[in-house]
Structure formats: structure tokens, C-alpha cells
């Protein structure tokens, strides 16, 4: 019973790979970041952009994957998310220039879905602009009067002279599983989930 695993490139890759191996999943070795996929005896591996993991898993191209809760929420995909892996902690926050107190009319973000839902929940009517990087620049240059972006330590923000106003979502890496795969490949997935939960639990305490 072969499994296909989708892992995100970038900051979550190392920790995801390590966590899955430690939980007993044999993963093929990846030569470097430029590799896109690797075949193994029992497990195939595909490497994706963080935000692309949910769609591969929902449609069953991959049986399971690792993705940050921020990207998972943004995707709105129908998946199982049985384990909080604990690493990759960050928060999505509303960020403005110090002293800005006027109404928010335009928000820039890499997470337009989460941003729109948050605005709606607050009863705020603002336009959302989807950006692909260096989101803080939107606030600095006045493209938007607020941005919603990932904050890890807050250093980048302070350097840009911006202020974190409110945490919208706290994120960590999640194990996500395709709905069909969990049922039909339970023999391999159930024990893996149990071991990952155990490991996450002992890491927390």
C-alpha cells in the first residue's frame, strides 16, 4: 500500500521531513531544494509551495501532507487535519503604521480569504488587495491602510516601522490527510497519526 506525501518547500520542510521519519514513515531522500519529487519503495514524495499542499491532498493526488494552519485556513479545502505538529509557529496579524487610527478602507495581504472573513466577522467594509510578497511595503507606501501578514518574531515589522495591532490567527504546522486515503489506507495512516500525536504531545510537555 503505497503512500504519496506532499511536503512544503521552505521553512517547514526540514522539520516536517524529520517529524515524519521519526514517526516511522520511510521517506525517499531528496537531493536538494530544486528536486520536485522522489520515488521510494513504500512512499513517494512531492515538494510543493506551502499554499499548494491542501489542493493536492484534497483531490487525492497526495494521500497526506504537511501545511501551516494559515495556508490551510486560506485554502478552504475539505480535508482531515488530525495532528498539530507543533513546529513552524507563527501568527497572522493585523498590522498598521503607528498612530494610524482612521477607518480601514483597504487591506493588503497574501491571505485574502482569511482577511475577508475577518473583516466580515467584524462588520468592516474594506477592499482586500492580494499581494505575493513584501506585504509590509503596502502599509509603508500607503497602498493600503492596513496589512494582514505573518509575524514570527516581529523583527521585520519593527524594522519597517510598523505596529502589530491584533492577532487574527495562530498557526503551526498540521498533518493533513485526504478523506478517502484515511479510510482506505488506514492500516498505514492510523499508526502514523498516533505516533505523530504522541510525539507532538511529549514535545509540548
Amino acid at each position, binding site marked *: 500500500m503505497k503512500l504519496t506525501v506532499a511536503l512544503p518547500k521552505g521553512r517547514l520542510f526540514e522539520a516536517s521531513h524529520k517529524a515524519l521519519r521519526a514517526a516511522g514513515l520511510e521517506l525517499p531522500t531528496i537531493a536538494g531544494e530544486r528536486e520536485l519529487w522522489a520515488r521510494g519503495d513504500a512512499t513517494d514524495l512531492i515538494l510543493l509551495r506551502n499554499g499548494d499542499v491542501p489542493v493536492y491532498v*484534497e*483531490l*487525492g*493526488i497526495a494521500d497526506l501532507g504537511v501545511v501551516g494552519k494559515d495556508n490551510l485556513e486560506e485554502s478552504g479545502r475539505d*480535508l*482531515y*487535519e*488530525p*495532528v*498539530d505538529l507543533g513546529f513552524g509557529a507563527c501568527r497572522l496579524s493585523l498590522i498598521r503604521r503607528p498612530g494610524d487610527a482612521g477607518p480601514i478602507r483597504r487591506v493588503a495581504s497574501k491571505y485574502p480569504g482569511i482577511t475577508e472573513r475577518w473583516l466580515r466577522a467584524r462588520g468592516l467594509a474594506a477592499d482586500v488587495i492580494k499581494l505575493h510578497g513584501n506585504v509590509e511595503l503596502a502599509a509603508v507606501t500607503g497602498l493600503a491602510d492596513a496589512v494582514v501578514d505573518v509575524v514570527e518574531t516581529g523583527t521585520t515589522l519593527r524594522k519597517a516601522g510598523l505596529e502589530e495591532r491584533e492577532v487574527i490567527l495562530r498557526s503551526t504546522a498540521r498533518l493533513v*490527510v*485526504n*478523506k*478517502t*486515503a*484515511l*479510510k*482506505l489506507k*488506514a492500516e498505514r495512516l*492510523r499508526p502514523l497519526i498516533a505516533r505523530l*500525536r504522541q510525539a*507532538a504531545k511529549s514535545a509540548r510537555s
Partner: protein
Amino acid sequence: MRPEGTRVYLGEEARRREALLGALARLFDEAGYAPVEVPALEAQDPAHPLYARAFKLVDKTGEVLMLRSEFTTALAKALLAEGRARREGRYRYAGRLWLREATAEVGRLREFTQVGVELVGVSSPEADAELLALAYRALEAAGVGRAVIEVGLPSFVHDLLEAARLPAEDCEALRRAVDRKAVPELADLLDRFGVTGRVRQAILALPDLYGGPEVLAEAERVALSERAKLDLAWLAEVRRRVSEVPMIFDFGMARRFDYYTGLTFRAYTPDFGLPLLGGGRYDGGLLPFAAGFALGLERLMEAAA
């Protein structure tokens, strides 16, 4: 320009679709299910389970109409109007449905075709067994190999969440976490809502109540309500009658827009990520006694290819 999520079928593909529709119609017909046709135009109804996602049109009177988005509700309304709601009847349907859903992906069109049956006017393990066996034979007829049917009982999640006595909003947050099997979130939510003791333990067990026959014993330990216990006994009786159908279980299934009251089921096949069929019993929801299932033609074609 063709609207998003619609498709043209030509040549060999169109023939294969027609052949599959024909094979399913014959199978259901031989099992005693008579054909029904219902209109594609429906009156607007905010209580419709797919109300928000259905296409709307404006009638010449200015009233809003909906494009058919689901057969079960349409058929139930037709039977109520014709005074046949209480009479035992076996019906089959096939036709197009429309949903405004934005993305068109594998087997996920905005205009799609469903084939299905409803068994009306009876409520018994025997009737459910008849439907499960027929669903399995339909998958065989469609050429889907190694299909497995998964059975769930909505009373499990529903009654346990009710036992927690929470406001509707909190209940909905718990339901969502159970449905996504998000155990860490579920534990946090239960802490935050102050749910303790046996109810907490039982709710936390729900996401992992899936698998082969071994979960039935576990489910019996978790079943707190009288109804959940009766549903389990009912399910045992259904299983006894259809031992030929490969069956798995998930008592943590908790979808949101459901009229189902009794046993529900889906079908999976290896190497295809999406369910091929869905159905269940909805006594008292739309009709006094009824159950049925539907298959998605496009998904079936994709999975059998």
C-alpha cells in the same frame, strides 16, 4: 465563451456516458425502481439545503426561481404534492444539476449529472440493506473496482454535541472540528467551553471512531443517547443482511447541510480521492419515511477510467 464548470461531450466520451446511464437505469429498473422526472426550475426556497449555492433566475412575474441543485429534495416535494408521500414506492432518476460553486476541478463541475434512487414509505433495516446492496451493484455496473462502502450515523455526533448543552455557535465550532478530525482544536474548544467528564471524553473519541467492524464495539461504549444505541442495533441488523458488501464505518462524520436522520453512506475506491456516491435515510426530514442514494456520473467516469 462557455460558462465555467460546464462541458461538452462528443464522440467516444458521449457514448460511454450514455452507455453508463443506460446500464444504471436497467439495474435500477430490474430492482423495481420506476423512472421519475422532475422540473429543472424550482420556486425559491430558503429552507432548501443548497439554497445559498443554487443558481437563481428571475421569473416573468419578478419572483425568484432556483435551478435544480439536488434530486432528493425535488423528488420529495413532488411526492408530497402528488399525495404519494406515505405510500411505499421505488423511484429512480437521472439528470442534470447546477451549483454556483466557483471552482471546476476533477469531477467537480457546476453543471453535472446525477443518477440515483429513493425508497419511499418504508423504514426498516431491510430497506436500508436493499439500498446498500443496490449501491454496491451500481458501482460494479459502472466498472469501479474494489469499491468500499462507508457507513455513518449522524445521531452519534448530533446527540453528543447536544448533550454538551452549548449555544448553537459553539456547537457549530465543535461540529466543524469533529468533521475535520482536528483533535487538537477539539480539545482546546472543549476546554474553552468548559465541557467536562463523560461528555467531553465521548466527544473527543468521535474523530477516531472510524475503521472496520472493530469500531462497532468502541462505538457502543461511546453511545450515550438512547437513539444512538438504537441506531447501532439497526446498523447491526443491516450488516447481517448485506454481508456481501465490503463495509467500513465512520461515526465521526458530521456534515453540515444534511437532512439525514438515520444511517448515511458513501463509497470510496482506491486511487481516487473523492467519494463516488452518497446517500442515507431521512425519515421525517423531507418525507415521513424515505432513504436513497445518488451517484455522480462525471466522478464515476473519472474513477472507472
